[in-house]
């Protein structure tokens, strides 16, 4: 045992004092300042927009249309967001490529829809044709999601968080450009059956809506209910919840973890497939690049609602859809900002950032980040 260590006994008093400035709780201050700024901006923007001179103002029916399209958009987001939430719940991983899973479903169904449109089946038997189209999209998205899990994510089960995330970014790019190579870069027109065409409306509870919006909202609600029942009532659903709770314990209890994770991805894929067709029918177009923006928006929605929670994803999707549709005209028009809808993505990302800063657990979450 060597002796003769000559460490100084304690620091000199000069270094052991903290200045007054160093004691400021900087993070709190930033948060408060940020909150004031944002509330101020939102309040001012709203006030200015609503008090515009009558000829520049949006009339009530325009606002109503914004809200309805927001709800429909929210339905699509909700379905994609469920995929993020399911995977996050089970693997604690952001499946960045989920937007491309959605895109692939949309693309696959497009070719069938296109064939039915040219053969006339789409307008003669719109119900059957749509059923097949939905089935194809769901199947494709489901297969791609499972393949993704098997090839890209399974080898990384025990890696640090950033490794699967980077892989997922790679997978996203890979899938997007695979679609580009397979199907070509051009935007193609997604055929819509005449019964759901743009000017066809239904009036429900006194509200007149485009039929396609009704279809989107109804399918989204059905899918959320179906998923909730599946997760809460079935054996497989119980396994998924068990794996989400604690993977190791679940495997000790005899649950096949790999299979359960695969099923989770498959479920996410099925829902993304539905969303794919909804997107195609709503916007009437498809291209390899349609996955990214809705993907990010849906991720934002799932964080907003509380990632890991099914109800949260649905709620988050709805709220985000509304914010995107109503936010730009409401906040920016008053400031005379031209083309407010250009700034839609700014709203999305701002929502994401703000939720993560102020309430990382989301609306339905615990209010505390699970571990920062």
């Amino acid at each position: 045992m060597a002796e003769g260590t000559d460490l100084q006994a304690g620091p000199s008093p000069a270094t052991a004092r903290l200045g007054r400035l160093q004691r400021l709780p900087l993070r709190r201050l930033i948060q408060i300042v940020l909150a004031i700024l944002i509330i101020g901006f939102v309040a001012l923007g709203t006030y200015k927009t609503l008090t515009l001179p009558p000829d520049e103002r949006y009339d009530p029916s325009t606002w109503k249309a914004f809200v309805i399209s927001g709800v429909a958009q929210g339905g699509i987001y909700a379905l994609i967001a469920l995929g993020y939430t399911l995977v996050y719940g089970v693997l604690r991983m952001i499946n960045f490529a989920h937007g491309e899973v959605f895109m692939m479903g949309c693309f696959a169904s497009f070719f069938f829809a296109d064939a039915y449109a040219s053969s006339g089946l789409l307008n003669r038997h719109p119900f059957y044709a749509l059923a097949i189209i939905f089935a194809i999209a769901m199947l494709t998205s489901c297969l791609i999601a499972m393949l993704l899990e098997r090839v890209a994510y399974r080898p990384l089960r025990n890696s640090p968080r950033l490794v699967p995330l980077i892989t997922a970014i790679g997978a996203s790019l890979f899938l997007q450009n695979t679609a580009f190579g397979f199907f070509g870069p051009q935007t193609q027109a997604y055929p819509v059956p005449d019964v759901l065409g743009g000017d066809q409306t239904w009036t429900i509870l006194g509200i007149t809506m485009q039929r396609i919006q009704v279809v989107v909202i109804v399918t989204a609600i059905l899918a959320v209910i179906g998923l909730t029942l599946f997760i809460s009532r079935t054996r497989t659903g119980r396994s998924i919840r068990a794996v989400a709770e604690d993977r190791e314990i679940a495997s000790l209890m005899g649950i096949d973890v790999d299979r359960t994770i695969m099923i989770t991805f498959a479920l996410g894929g099925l829902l993304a497939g539905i969303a794919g067709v909804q997107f195609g029918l709503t916007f009437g177009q498809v291209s390899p690049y349609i996955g990214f923006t809705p993907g990010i928006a849906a991720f934002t929605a799932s964080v907003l609602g509380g990632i890991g929670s099914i109800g949260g994803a649905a709620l988050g999707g709805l709220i985000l859809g509304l914010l995107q549709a109503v936010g730009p005209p409401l906040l920016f028009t008053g400031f005379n900002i031209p083309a407010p809808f250009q700034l839609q993505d700014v709203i999305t990302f701002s929502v994401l950032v703000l939720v993560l800063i102020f309430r990382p657990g989301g609306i339905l979450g615990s209010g505390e980040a699970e571990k920062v």
Partner: protein
Amino acid sequence: MIRRIPRVVRAGLVAGIVSVYLCLVGVVGSLVTNVVGKVTVGRVLLSIPAILAGFLVARPRVVSGDVHRPSVRAGVSAGAIVGLTTGALLAIFIGVVNLLGIETVRNVFIAVKPELMSLLTFGHAGVVGSVLRIGAEVALGAVGGAIGATQDRIRVPTVIAATVVISLGLLRRIVHPALAQLGLRDDWLFSVVTLGLTWFGAAAVFVVTFVTTFAWRANSAAIVARTHRTPATERGVRVVVLAVIGAGLIALPFLIGSIFSQILGTVGIYILLGLGLNIVVGYAGLLDLGYVAFFAVGAYTTAILTGGSRVTTTGYAPPSFVLHLSFFVAIPIVVAVAALVGLVIGAPVLRLRGDYLAIVTLGFGEIARVLFSSDWLKGAFGGTQGITAIPAAPIGNLDFRDTQHFYFLVLGFCLVAVYISWRLADSRVGRAWNAMREDEQVAEAVGVSTVRYKLLAFAMGGAIGSLGGALFAVQVGALNNASFMLLVSITALAVVILGGMGSIPGVIVGALVLIGIPGVFSEFEQYRLLLYGAVLMAIMILRPQGLIPNVRRSQELEEEDVAQDKWAGAVTADEQAAPVASPLGEGAG
């Protein structure tokens, strides 16, 4: 069920699926540069899955502790079975396409063209073509199997020689003019007809490389042992090596001509972006997906400070705020602005966990792009038309607009950035970043202000990245939002990941490969992003430490989470007052 299929057949199936994928995605049909004779890049790519699968099944295997090395004959036959399976899948693909008709399939898969089918069937219709394809795949698989099963001293030189031949074939566009500059004849090497290697040239290069590698591997140890080494000679060797590299870097643009100098300029810009991102991701462990924001800030700030113009319907107009500084006067301001933006972006996200941080920064990057190109800020940044007529960077008579001169400007900036990165890595600051990356909470507990060092990482990374943006503004002379897509962030990330996080040589190699190759090889451009995606996935799955790992970093990706989980475990054990605390429950790190 899948597990019951023999390994060899499974490998063949995977190779077959990959081959069909390569056909469908278009690389086989549309990469038509000749490598050797009339063998196109597409053909080379198509042959790789079978060879690789054959190679892998024939590699020695460890079976219950013993190394099981198949004989060459066994390797060949295993490879042949692999090839047969691969060929069968391709034959099925050919059959399906023929059955449905090329035109029908092409309505969906645009890459399925008559040229592709004739390439697959060697120009023979019907069954003959399919049989030829199967035969070819069997041969390729067998070759792969043979290489895999031979001993290292043959196998390694073979693989190296084959790689050199293919690379040389691909790099003709650079090598040919360079040789011409040096006054060397190369018509024996490159065919003037196919523009690929001649078969003679390929064989010669193969043999020379093989023999050299073989001899070096056999004798290198002896040669090194015989050389008398002293510190003085080592220093001498180092000086000579540096001098050679320096001379090479100076001569390079004149050897390769102005077109490739431009590509080198772009490579340099991405080296700068990579080095900056490397500080954020590699040193400090913060995954920033919005790095393009700094690139954009650098470019737009430079444009405005040096006096670019907006494009309007009536012609050019100055932006609402504009100075006419010299590029070199503007640079310090650009760097300061970027560092400031780094602080502003960093401040609100300080407490976010790694993966959330990534998505939020991605959001910031997109917000930056949308704002720069929005009609709202059109007055300042020119909206979607952007800013144009950005002056060059004049010193005396040089303005660095010419690509060969621009190269030197970039080179200078890169050297500075490399120096800064290198010095920072080995300093108090670098150690603090490393500690933070390895375990943020412990670093904090040991006395590192993680708030300050995160902000510092964002600011430093942003400052270096903005240099890339500034150079980009000079290089292209006009900016618009198409140059600042998310893609720039992802490319920079791929550059860092390919070489290895935290590794400076890794960034340089990453940029050369990922920017250089698609640049030189222009028909590859449309598959660039496919390549980046594949690289990101493959590296993370197969070799997370990257191609040229930072020694220290190498183990960490595997270890980090273990350590973090333990931390989490310790905290929860404490929080939940767990009845049993295990004293030995950690093999930490």
